[in-house]
């Protein structure tokens, strides 16, 4: 009897504590949420992470700089390319290397394709969590087209490790531009279908409007970035305010909504998909032709000091901090991951709502758990 009641804490006022996870269909990864309920209402919740802690930061201290790239893929695997780009940019900044324009354009195009791909998967899983099971198939069907483009140029669909300090590992496939243009034409017709299925549905509005309210001050104080923060009005788009790669050569809007509820975060991501397509269209026809990598030494040794690079992944702001002592391996690498800050605001915004709201809120924050644990 005692073993079975160990996980049940019953207090006088009929609160009971249950576990969601670590294996659960809607937490999207190995995350354990300890939720205290009173009937259907959530009183508080505590996330327990660390189930997929692999010690990436420690491993980086014994690997050379080109080798670190392969580890960063596995942190937030849905923005794999952007993670790689962050480390490459940091190393290039430290070595004061100027990469060719072609590299900047291709990196930006790939970053936007990765962002599109990640938002498609988010949309599929979000609809499925709320019960509209068909969204899963529509989103993944369109995502396959992007993954085909990736597979053609890099050989792998999700974790490519295509960037290297100084440029790209090899040049892209000759059909790269053609396939991207075909995809953009195809997807511009398909994206309104997503709105018809989910965004304009009145049941969905009831499930998401007014649910999980996050103010702008709270977003800044908790460090919630990315579309989750921009849904609350926090202007945190690194691409706009601290541009890198080819982002200063394109015109795009920063998507801001002020309502701060689940629906605003949802709309922010849907609008970001349109903006990504605009950015790709502006860049894909003008890729210059000046080589796919700069001249780099065989063994990279960064000068002493601390170097910091901030990029915008699909989920928020990723910071890479590299501290070097002049050797060929870094002394300390720190990844400030966006999902880490986004997760811990869950207690604040889900308390007081119902369990069904908890599922909707954690879906709208778009958490990828390996990024939290690294």
């Amino acid at each position, binding site marked *: 009897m005692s073993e079975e009641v160990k996980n049940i804490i019953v207090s006088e006022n009929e609160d009971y504590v249950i576990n969601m996870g670590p294996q659960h269909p809607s937490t999207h990864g190995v995350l354990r949420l300890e939720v205290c309920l009173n009937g259907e209402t959530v009183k508080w919740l505590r996330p327990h992470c660390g189930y997929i802690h692999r010690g990436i930061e420690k491993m980086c201290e014994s690997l050379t700089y080109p080798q670190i790239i392969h580890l960063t893929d596995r942190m937030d695997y849905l923005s794999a390319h952007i993670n790689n780009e962050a480390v490459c940019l940091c190393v290039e900044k430290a070595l004061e290397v100027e990469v060719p324009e072609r590299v900047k354009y291709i990196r930006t195009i790939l970053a936007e394709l990765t962002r599109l791909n990640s938002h498609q998967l988010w949309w599929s899983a979000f609809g499925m969590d709320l019960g509209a099971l068909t969204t899963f198939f529509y989103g993944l069907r369109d995502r396959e087209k992007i993954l085909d483009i990736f597979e053609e140029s890099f050989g792998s669909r999700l974790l490519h490790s295509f960037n290297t300090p100084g440029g790209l590992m090899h040049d892209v496939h000759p059909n790269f531009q053609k396939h991207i243009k075909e995809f953009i034409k195809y997807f511009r017709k398909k994206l309104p279908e997503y709105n018809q299925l989910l965004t304009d549905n009145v049941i969905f509005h009831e499930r998401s409007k007014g649910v999980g309210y996050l103010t702008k001050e709270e977003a800044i104080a908790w460090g919630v970035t990315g579309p989750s923060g921009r849904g609350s009005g926090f202007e945190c788009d690194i691409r706009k305010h601290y541009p890198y790669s080819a982002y200063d050569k394109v015109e795009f809007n920063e998507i801001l909504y002020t309502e701060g509820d689940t629906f605003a975060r949802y709309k922010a991501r849907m609008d970001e998909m349109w903006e990504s397509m605009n950015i790709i269209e502006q860049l894909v026809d003008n890729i210059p032709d000046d080589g796919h990598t700069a001249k780099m030494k065989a063994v990279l040794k960064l000068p002493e000091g601390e170097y910091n690079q901030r990029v915008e992944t699909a989920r928020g702001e990723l910071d890479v901090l590299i501290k070097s002592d002049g050797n060929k391996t870094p002394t300390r690498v720190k990844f*400030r991951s966006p999902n880490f800050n986004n997760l811990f605001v869950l207690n604040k915004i889900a308390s007081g709502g119902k369990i069904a709201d908890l599922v909707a809120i954690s879906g709208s924050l778009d958490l990828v758990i390996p990024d939290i644990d690294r």
Partner: protein
Amino acid sequence: MDISQLKIKLGEKFKGIEEADKIDLSGFIVPADQLHEIIVFLKEYEKGKFNYLFNLTCTDNGDSFTMLYYMESVEERANVVVKTNIDREKPVIPTVADLFPAAEYLEREVYDLFGVVFENHPDLRRLFLEDDFGYPLRKDFKDEINIIER
């Protein structure tokens, strides 16, 4: 925002501020016991409040730990890093979790991986690892089973 003016204002109010090597962002090296007041000052600086703490971490220098606090002012788009050195044998530092809620968890991570104790932290527990694991990101962490020394 004029960082040199910020440095002058800081120098007027606090002692022992040095300017860090400007590689990337402007930074200040501050003594550890004044850390909390300096962060409060920066958070309420009238020319642009540094209200967004975007990174909080620790590095191991071999003979001391250095804590790094990266802050941004969202209105003025200025970034600054505050560094302090703390003792390696007994690493203790006041917490900033009362000023920035995000810091509560970032500091827990530093406690988990380095062993730095934060005074007045609301809930100082380990985040990722078990209670008897040791502090892996220290340079003198030895694990014969899992780590292969080259």
